[in-house]
């Protein structure tokens, strides 16, 4: 199989756009709301999900013909949970501050519906290279949305844009003091969960409009 034929491209690009796991299927919402307070958290979370989803898809696809159907959910969960634990341990060792900020939400990748969903719906039915592309597409689709949401939440909620730097985060840009002096105020609501719902709702609306998707009435 050629890696970059049109079918492979579709496997990667569909979940980023017209079949996005968050904005179209509305999966994986819990972590999308929780880790989008700051941009750097969303970026690290995206990398963690890309790693977990790609590896779990490939591993499960490799052993798909040997998994007894009766225990497949248990097997999928064990593989995913082990991969997430590995990520969690690595973050604690190499990105300690970030792992403190992400706290329980790294562990909660285990229960992210996107990962179990892709394993069940795709990886168990396709070969490893396709499964990898599917994992890549879906995790990037997830990442794209949470990065967009966190960008707006941080910018308008806290007045900064922070990139990950191995420590407590590198502030790329923050709203100048003169704006505050002139009467500008951060929207505190955006830092709280309701703010995430509002931004996510807007993103879903715009993305669906853009992708030309309509729900059946």
């Amino acid at each position, binding site marked *: 199989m050629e890696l970059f034929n049109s079918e492979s491209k579709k496997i990667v690009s569909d979940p980023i756009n017209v079949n996005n796991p968050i904005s179209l299927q509305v999966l994986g919402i819990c972590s999308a709301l*929780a880790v989008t307070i700051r941009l750097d958290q969303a970026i690290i979370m995206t990398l963690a999900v890309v790693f977990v989803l790609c590896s779990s898809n490939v591993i499960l696809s490799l*052993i798909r013909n*040997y*998994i*007894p*159907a*009766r*225990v497949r959910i*248990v*097997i999928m969960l*064990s*593989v995913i949970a*082990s991969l997430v*634990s*590995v990520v969690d*341990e*690595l973050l*604690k*060792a*190499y990105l*300690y501050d970030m792992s*403190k900020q992400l*706290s*329980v939400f790294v562990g909660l990748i285990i229960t992210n519906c996107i990962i179990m969903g892709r394993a069940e719906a795709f990886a168990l039915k396709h070969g490893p290279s396709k499964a990898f592309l599917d994992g890549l597409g879906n995790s990037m689709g997830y990442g794209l949305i949470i990065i967009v949401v966190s960008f707006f939440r941080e910018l308008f909620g806290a007045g900064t844009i922070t990139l990950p730097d191995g*420590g407590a985060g590198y502030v790329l840009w923050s709203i100048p003091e003169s704006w505050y002096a002139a009467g500008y105020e951060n929207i505190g609501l955006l830092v*709280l*969960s309701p703010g995430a719902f509002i931004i996510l709702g807007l993103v879903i609306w715009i993305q669906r409009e853009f992708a030309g998707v309509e729900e059946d009435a």
Partner: protein
Amino acid sequence: MYSNNYTLFFVFIVTVVLGTMLSFTKDSVKDLQDQNLKADVQKTILRSLNFDESLLLTNESIEETFKSSIDAKCVNVEGEIVDCNIEEVDIEKNEDTLPIYIRVDNDEVQGIALPIAGKGLWSTIFGYIALNPDTDSVLGIQFYKHGETPGLGGEVEKKWFTDNFVNHPSKQPNGEIQYIPKKIRDKSGKIVSIKVVKGGVDYSESNTSSIHQVDGISGATVTADGVTDFLLEDLLRYEKTLDKIRDYGTI
């Protein structure tokens, strides 16, 4: 359809492989994680003692600063120095070996950091409170480990909350802002600690104990009450030690 034996065998193999992978990962990064944890505790102590953030950027600089400017020892409730391995002391359980961290610059005490720990809503909260050499006004307070709900009880570790314990900006009639320090001792010198007040502190003239109070966190009353309780309890264990430092400038 696979046989039961095959299914059991398969699950067994998967478990062994995944288990090996996990323990291998944990084993290979354990040292790094321990270093990070140790540096995090030291960073919390240094932060509470108001060290400049630029000294606290890497694990190495934290350790160096800690070694060169902190005098760490243990005391008992009577305020006498006792022998201990300070890193091994369980601050939650130990009643008679109390760690104390003193910031010394040019042979003079600049601040005293004491470990505090106690139950919040879901978890034990760990932190340090640092006092000025008068052992009355607060130099800083920091929490480094807890399992409280992010956004609610988890706010205890945030700057807005911990800053409350140091002072309160009060606008004077002439328009100037005066910072009124928080105190842990009442007028007679007795330790009364600082109370986290539900809602907010009443700063009107009639509330004479506002210097012993800080604003609470909305939605996290249990966590706040926990902080109030263990702060008082832990400070009282150090009462004699603190009296000694106040009166003699040393233990």
